């Protein structure tokens, strides 16, 4: 498969940007500067980046409690994301939402919220709207393996299939749902097999290989644009951090969930590193990558520094401001 250098470097830049952004939150979480729950996306970046690289700006996505990556990959501003995580008035939700409630309508990020499975039907609604308008746009629902426990997912897959709606269901299977491993909560580990029974395109892929994700997403987008949707993609991946905050959730520690060896083996398959290796073997120079890293680092740093000019919304008038339009 041949790719333009531009395409590859754009993908790399998004991966790095998300990683730097996520890791910039670690210390502020630990020292209490960030108060609300933050679900880090480190280790899963290739899913959001690969899928969103196949989308147009006019396509829309919906996310979850763990959506910093979806937000940046779809073109949301890093500064607005960082500000929101710190609950500042300059944030994408003006400090009303925090990390768990992200939106950037102009970028096609129509909303991420933390009720598990809660946005899947909304994404389906957006797909229905696209099909009524015949505008050829595609909707993406991002959700985790845990969300496959909610009946609403399968109600949506069925309806989408019956009506041939332009939606891509993207299941980020990181093998855990809070404190439960996938084998404790699913009769069949392979979520894509369940989706297959609805008679749709459904595929399991390596979610840590960004080009695998990109290729599959392009295929799915094409199908959807040709009214041959819906599609289901199960991207197998892993969180380098634990469920919430920077804690690893390693067995034997207070959160006591994941085997250390499992984490170590996934670290070897870090999606950013894997793609870096690919780029180097594809003949892209290290300097080009370093320059991108440098730029991403500066962007995140500038976003964090810009917090100094912001404040948390406060006071009665601010409290009641957005109840209705």
């Amino acid at each position, binding site marked *: 498969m041949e790719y333009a250098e531009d395409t590859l470097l754009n993908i790399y830049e998004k991966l790095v940007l998300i990683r730097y952004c996520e890791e910039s939150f670690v210390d502020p979480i630990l020292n209490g500067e960030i*108060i*609300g*729950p933050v679900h880090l996306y480190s280790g899963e970046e290739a899913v959001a980046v690969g899928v969103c690289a196949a989308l147009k700006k006019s396509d829309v996505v919906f996310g979850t409690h763990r959506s910093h990556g979806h937000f940046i990959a779809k073109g949301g501003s890093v500064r607005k994301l960082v500000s929101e995580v710190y*609950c*500042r008035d300059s944030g994408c*939700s003006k*400090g*009303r*939402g*925090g990390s*768990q*409630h992200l939106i950037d309508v102009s970028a096609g990020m129509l909303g991420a*919220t*933390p*009720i*598990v*499975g*809660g946005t899947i039907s909304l994404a389906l609604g957006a797909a229905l709207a696209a099909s009524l308008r015949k505008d050829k746009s595609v909707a993406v629902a991002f959700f985790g393996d*845990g*969300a496959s*426990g*909610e*009946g*609403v997912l399968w109600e949506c897959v069925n309806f989408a299939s019956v009506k041939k709606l332009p939606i891509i269901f993207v299941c980020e299977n990181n093998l855990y*749902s*809070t*404190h*439960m491993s996938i084998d*404790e*909560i*699913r009769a069949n580990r392979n979520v894509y097999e369940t989706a297959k029974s609805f008679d749709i395109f459904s595929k399991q892929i390596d979610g840590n290989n960004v080009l695998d994700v990109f290729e599959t997403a392009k295929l799915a987008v094409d199908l959807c644009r040709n009214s041959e949707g819906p599609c289901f993609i199960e991207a197998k991946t892993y969180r380098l951090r634990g469920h919430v905050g920077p804690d690893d959730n390693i067995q034997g520690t207070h*959160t006591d969930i994941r085997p250390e060896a499992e984490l170590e083996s996934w670290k070897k398959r870090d999606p950013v590193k894997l793609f870096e290796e690919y780029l180097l073997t594809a003949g892209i120079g290290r300097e080009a990558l370093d320059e991108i890293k440098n730029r991403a680092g500066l962007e995140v740093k500038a976003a964090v520094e810009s917090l100094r000019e912001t404040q*948390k*919304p*406060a*006071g*009665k008038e*601010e*409290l*009641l401001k957005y*109840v209705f339009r």
Partner: protein
Amino acid sequence: MSSDNRKITYARAINEALKQKMRSDDTVFVIGQGVKSPWYVGHTCADLIEEFGAERIIDTPVSENAMTGVAVGASIAGMKAVAVHPRMDFMLYGLDPIINQAANWHYMFGGGASVPVVIWAIINRGGEQGSQHSQALQALFAHIPGLKVVMPADAYSAKGLLVAAIEDPNPVVFIDDRWLYNNSGEVPEELYKVPIGQARLVKEGKDMTAVASSFLLGEAEKAVNQLADEGIEVELIDLRTIKPFDKEAISKSVKKTGKLLVIDGGWKSFGVSAEIAAWISSECFNELKAPVFRLALPDCPAPASCDLEKEFYFDSFTIISEIRRIVQQ
């Protein structure tokens, strides 16, 4: 330490109620997310899986609609299920089994069967969690005929009300609050019940009556104690049961004091405070010396920013100024 003044936390009191009921009644079981892990439900489920096994302490997939229905169905079929929702917000997926099924079941079959299920809903808010992780929805459930709703304010009533809820032949929504989990109080070791439908007179007073429940009872108590130092004597009632609320206890007090402030941790409009205020206004119309006042949350989703949270939630200071204002009426 003698057993009658033993102190344990609110969370441990819930834990003890579950343990003692499960030991004495084989039909009792617990089902919900996080029951095998302290992550979600604090110490309320500590050691349960070790003692009763994964058969009766059932940690579940993220499937609230089905799991709530499972609890309701098992209770129809002769068991006594306690279905826990680590955040009340998550149990909105389970509204059908709770409202359409469990609440109506006994009535719509002419008493043919009852549903002795406990829906245990945890309020877990604050800390910039935002709108979908902060809701206190007692009014929503209290609105439904066929459901009882209890909200313990301290360790003693947490244990006693949970035991009563489990023993009740009807569906009971047991609502606790993470903000209370580490509060300690005197709790008898033996199994006992706090009767559903009975309020508790916390403090006698003659100047006015205040009614509160759950977390805000503690704030009201602080307020009332401080005002007592200023010579303002407030009679304070812990509601304990939201539905059916103790009409006799409240009206008796209001007939004495002539003034009432209703304090509730849910939203103000169409809420618990509205219901009690409306009822007392007609019941005690002749004895009231002032309109009934209410303190509850503003009609606004829970914000994330902690500075907005400070504006959204209220504490003893707000209660103090409201009471001062009312007694001067």
